[in-house]
């Protein structure tokens, strides 16, 4: 990694210049990244792709407006040019000599301690290759009718410095690793694809500890069942969503509507619902960045603030929103350490970290036994949410529930609804909360997050099918 803390003077010069020009807030984000991804297909590693880069993002606020400029040029001249452009966007000029309210950067908050050795603990390319090939080998061992076997790994080591005119001065190293297995099973004209992805942050040895064999077993079992599954009948019915990645629905359908970015746009139906009942009393939901090793955990956000554990919904009542610096300025909701961005090319925005529905009192079996005729969603595919809260999610692995028991596997199901209408219908939460890693794409780019929930029951939801 390349960033030096002796850049303090350069940063102070940039910030002071912006402040003197009349900016209310000047923020500089500098990053250096060192990444690699590998793909193994069947029994060969077909792609090894290292990448590295440096860059800075300079953001200037004047009132509720902000100007943001990014550059790959980290020289004092490059930063100065970026600042001048950002100021110019707001009609400010370095020729103006206003009172400089900037009192200098605070003492460096250094979150990199003990993280510099991570690079030596991460498996090297040779070891990573062997682990991935072990994964595809297990898919061959446990799979039947498997025509494509894939395993993949991605690692991003990111070093950041955040400095701002409110004195913020912090440095951190982030390590995010994700890996997984995918298969395509086929028999005559029938096909089924199943995948699982895992991810951690700040856990350099995570890949070495991965139990690829049990992952392969689970995926092959699912693929075997889904290969011969019938298409689901479209209609309305109760749905039980499995734990872990089932939480993606809450993330997409509700979590995004609780980001101050959505409040600023006026697209959240929950903007005036603080302390009001928006969900069933069974629902308590949390967004935090502190669970050790979780994919969405962070020591500081991309605005230099430590993450706050934020209770979003408590027993169905809306308690808090997810806020960043701009969100606090524009909506008044206090920052929650949720200002996040993919990299220096993006201005930070209010984004989720580890977001989950809290555990309830039932067992997963209680939920299934309480359902006469419904759908069990064991594994979710991707999904999306529209600008006014309409969501849709594909079900990767589903089973019909008949008279309180799981029966036939079904494919082709899509869950459709609106957060505002579905949240009150979550009637039961099981006691098996678990988390899963994912990537979230939104206004400030793709970021690593965690979704999660226990098994939950939704009394009625529209299922798109054939």
């Amino acid at each position, binding site marked *: 990694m390349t960033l030096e803390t002796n850049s303090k003077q350069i940063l102070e010069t940039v910030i002071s210049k912006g402040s003197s020009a009349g900016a209310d807030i000047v923020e500089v984000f500098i990053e250096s990244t060192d990444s690699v991804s590998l793909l193994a297909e069947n029994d060969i590693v077909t792609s090894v792709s290292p990448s590295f880069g440096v860059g800075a993002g300079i953001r200037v606020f004047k009132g509720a407006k902000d100007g943001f400029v990014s550059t790959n040029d980290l020289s004092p001249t490059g930063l100065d040019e970026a600042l001048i452009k950002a100021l110019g966007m707001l009609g400010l000029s370095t020729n103006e000599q206003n009172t400089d309210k900037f009192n200098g950067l605070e003492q460096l908050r250094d979150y990199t301690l003990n993280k510099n050795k991570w690079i030596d603990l991460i498996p090297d390319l040779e070891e990573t290759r062997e682990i991935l090939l072990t994964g595809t080998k297990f898919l061959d061992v446990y799979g039947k009718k498997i025509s494509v076997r894939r395993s993949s790994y991605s690692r991003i080591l990111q070093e950041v410095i955040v400095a701002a005119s409110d004195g913020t001065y912090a440095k951190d190293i982030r390590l995010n690793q994700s890996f997984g297995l995918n298969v395509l099973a086929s028999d005559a004209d029938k*096909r089924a694809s199943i995948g699982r992805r895992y991810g951690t942050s700040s856990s350099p040895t995570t890949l070495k500890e991965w139990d690829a064999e049990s992952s392969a077993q689970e995926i092959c079992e699912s693929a075997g069942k889904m290969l011969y599954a019938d298409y689901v009948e479209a209609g309305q019915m109760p749905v039980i969503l499995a734990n872990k990645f089932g939480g993606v629905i809450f993330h997409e359908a509700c979590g995004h509507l609780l980001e101050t970015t959505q409040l600023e746009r006026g697209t959240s139906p929950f903007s005036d619902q603080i302390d009001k009942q928006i969900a069933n009393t069974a629902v308590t939901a949390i967004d935090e960045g502190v669970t050790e090793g979780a994919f969405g955990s962070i020591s500081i956000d991309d605005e230099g603030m430590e993450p706050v554990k934020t209770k979003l919904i408590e027993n169905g009542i809306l308690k808090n929103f997810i806020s960043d610096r701009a969100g606090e300025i524009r909506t008044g909701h206090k920052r929650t350490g949720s200002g996040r961005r993919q990299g220096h090319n993006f201005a930070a925005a209010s984004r989720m970290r580890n977001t989950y529905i809290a555990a309830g009192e039932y067992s997963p079996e209680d939920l299934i036994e309480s359902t006469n005729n419904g759908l069990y969603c064991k594994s979710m595919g991707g999904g999306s949410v529209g600008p006014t809260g309409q969501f849709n999610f594909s079900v990767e692995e589903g089973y019909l529930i008949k008279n309180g028991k799981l029966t036939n596997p079904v494919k082709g199901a899509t869950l459709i609804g609106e957060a505002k209408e579905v949240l009150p219908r979550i009637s039961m939460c099981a006691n098996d909360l678990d988390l899963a890693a994912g990537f979230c794409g939104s206004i400030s780019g793709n970021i690593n997050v965690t979704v999660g929930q226990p098994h939950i029951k939704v009394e009625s939801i529209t299922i798109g099918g054939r």
Partner: protein
Amino acid sequence: MNNTDMPYGNDSTKMQVMYDQIKSIANNESILKWDVGASTSIDTSVQVDKGEAKQLKGSQRQALTIRVWNKKGLIGITNTSDFTKDGLKKALLGAQKASEFGNKNETPEFSPLCKEEIDELNRPLSINGDIQDLFNSLKIAESDLLDRHEDIKAIPYNGIAESLSERFYFNCESAFRYTKISQSSIYLYAMAQQENRKPRSAGSVRISNCFDDLDINGCINEAAEKTIAHLNYQNISTDKYLVCFTPEAFLDLIGAFSTMFNARSVLDGVSISKKESIGKQIAVPFLSIFDNGLHPSNIGACPFDGEGTPTKKICLLRNGILENFLHSEATARSFGVLPTGHAGIGAKVSVGPDWLDVRGDNNSPQNKESLSYKDSTRDFVLIEGLNALHAGVKPSQGSFSLPFDGWIVRNGEKISIEAATIAGDINQVLNSIIKVEAEQIITTQGISPHIWVEDLKITGEA
């Protein structure tokens, strides 16, 4: 203003400097074979909120991929945004190290066409350069759109942007490719709501090669028209329907299943097509599909691909028969054909379409249904746009289940559909087409007429 200078030198001189630096480093490190693909851009964008600038954004971006072939002939790559001499050296050495893990079974080579003559695009090259102009234009557009109807409450998603970008490719055997394009765009996504009714939203996008040609009024008109029209909505019953895809929607669907035309996907076993599918009838005989990246309306056209192969028009489907796949150098070698100009750059090279051109055969006796989206007497569902393609399409299986924006059309009257999904199989769609209309309409992603398909399952949200 018409400033088209780039920040770190200009035009192909920069490429020559970089070429000399890499050549020198490669010689010192005894790296004999290498190539480079790179891009740089300057981007400016604005968003507004009720007349106020919300975020003004500028960026200078650069990215480069170096590929190195080691002495065993294996390939390794590295990507970097650091164009300094040290950065280039680090990238070259990183690629050399990665080549130790190269795939022995498939090694890309230089494209046999990377020194072929390419056509000049001769597109307008101009950017406005003044962010205040962009802001003022967007502010006026927002205000105009808000004034179009009392129920249009906000334009929550909006933006105007322009960029000037360069793309280049060169290799150690003196292949050189360079191009530079400018692009301007505007999008307006409005939200409208009537009392005791659900909020409705719709939008529009326009792109052009230069700001002066940007059809801002067209964007406002389309966004207003769509948003207002969607205010009158109702549920749709779950059933099978006669469906008419707008050009945008059909191109989205074909684009999502473009792995059926993709030789890389065929070789990887993740396409619904097979090597022997060439020459087979896979669609109705009055449908043809081309890929034509050089079409004058393709604003983002590039005259060469990631391997330096010239971009060219290629027929994928002629009269329902699969005629060609899209190729990189490696897939073309495997199929015994020439690369088609659709490659990226990498150790394993990706392949993808540029700009699809869908057309029908109006002389075909099978294309005889008297259907027109403008004045059909039959009841049908008009699919205006498909959503969540990344989640609802399974390209390796051929199935899809997608939410859409659209209309129930009864006796010529259009009523917006509240919320619904459409599900099916791409093979079924291609073989259930009953009409390909004559008029091709240009969109931001290709050109296509309206396409009519029978018996597609639609699920309405109750």
